[in-house]
């Protein structure tokens, strides 16, 4: 089903709860399963932002929705950790509230181009290439200039502090897209005669962009 740019919301994190370091283990599986040393107090559908400076560093900065199966166990919905490093330590924060960017009029996040690695040898008659890692998708959100919008204020603060911000896109068809991103914006604007002032926010996702059908 096509995703239509109407009756949808783009939101950024409003409240990040206290960081919990009670993780005992995270499996290398699809999906990864987290066991906590104490009751996590979370419920299915909660959205967490992870931090890991050692061990399973692939999870550092990842935003993911969870499904809980026990008071001390939850799964990382749609996140395959099979090939990740072994978990040693880390923390998570629940993103419990969001600011809707009610001024947003369009959003773009094209996939990054892969690195083109020259593997031409002396016997080749034409250039030969292999593809390396792709650039992270660079995104932008354009909309009405509204510096008082709470989401814009949060983006401006995150820009100033150089901190990633969690994003949630709620599609009209009931799907959700979550990602954590470095952001820049909240101050500039474009203005033309007799037209509404516009602004653009730039972002680059940190780690995986996860999409959920419901």
């Amino acid at each position: 089903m096509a995703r239509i740019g109407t009756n949808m919301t783009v939101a950024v994190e409003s409240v990040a709860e206290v960081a919990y370091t009670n993780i005992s283990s995270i499996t290398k599986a699809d999906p990864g399963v987290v066991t906590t040393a104490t009751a996590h107090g979370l419920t299915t559908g909660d959205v967490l932002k992870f931090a890991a400076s050692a061990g399973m560093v692939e999870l550092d900065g990842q935003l993911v929705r969870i499904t809980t199966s026990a008071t001390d166990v939850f799964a990382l919905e749609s996140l395959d950790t099979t090939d990740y490093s072994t978990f040693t330590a880390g923390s998570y924060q629940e993103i419990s509230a969001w600011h809707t960017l009610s001024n947003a009029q369009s959003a773009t996040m094209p996939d990054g181009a892969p690195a083109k690695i020259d593997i031409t040898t002396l016997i080749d008659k034409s250039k030969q290439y292999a593809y390396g890692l792709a650039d992270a998708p660079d995104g932008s959100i354009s909309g009405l200039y509204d510096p008082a919008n709470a989401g814009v204020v949060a983006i401006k603060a995150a820009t100033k502090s150089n901190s990633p911000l969690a994003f949630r896109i709620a599609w009209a068809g009931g799907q959700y897209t979550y990602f954590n991103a470095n952001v820049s914006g909240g101050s500039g604007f474009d203005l033309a005669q007799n037209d509404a002032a516009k602004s653009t926010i730039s972002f680059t996702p940190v780690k995986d962009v996860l999409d959920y059908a419901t």
Partner: protein
Amino acid sequence: MSLQSEIVTALSTVASGAIYPQFVPVDVDLPFVVYRIVNKDPLVTLSDGTVEVNTIVEFDCYDESYSEALTLAAAVKTAIGLSSLVYYETSSPGEDYEPIVDVFMEPVFYGFWHT
């Protein structure tokens, strides 16, 4: 307050208040102004919220002579300029003359930003 009622309020002193939407009633004396909305362009967001509307309104200013029609059009511009409406003057197709009824008409087009 709707844009229409704000327009009528703004033009209340023009042509002794002879301001009519769409068409003029029968046997109304000159001068008078007929206004009509010719375009509405809503400013929408992804969440489908219409933030504001950009509405283009045509004001047809009728009077007995060419110069009086121009004076009436100038009065409309002055009244809009003195109002609290968020406005801008936009391109106009030009003046007209109705030979059957011997009436001159000077059109004025304005864009308004409103909620």
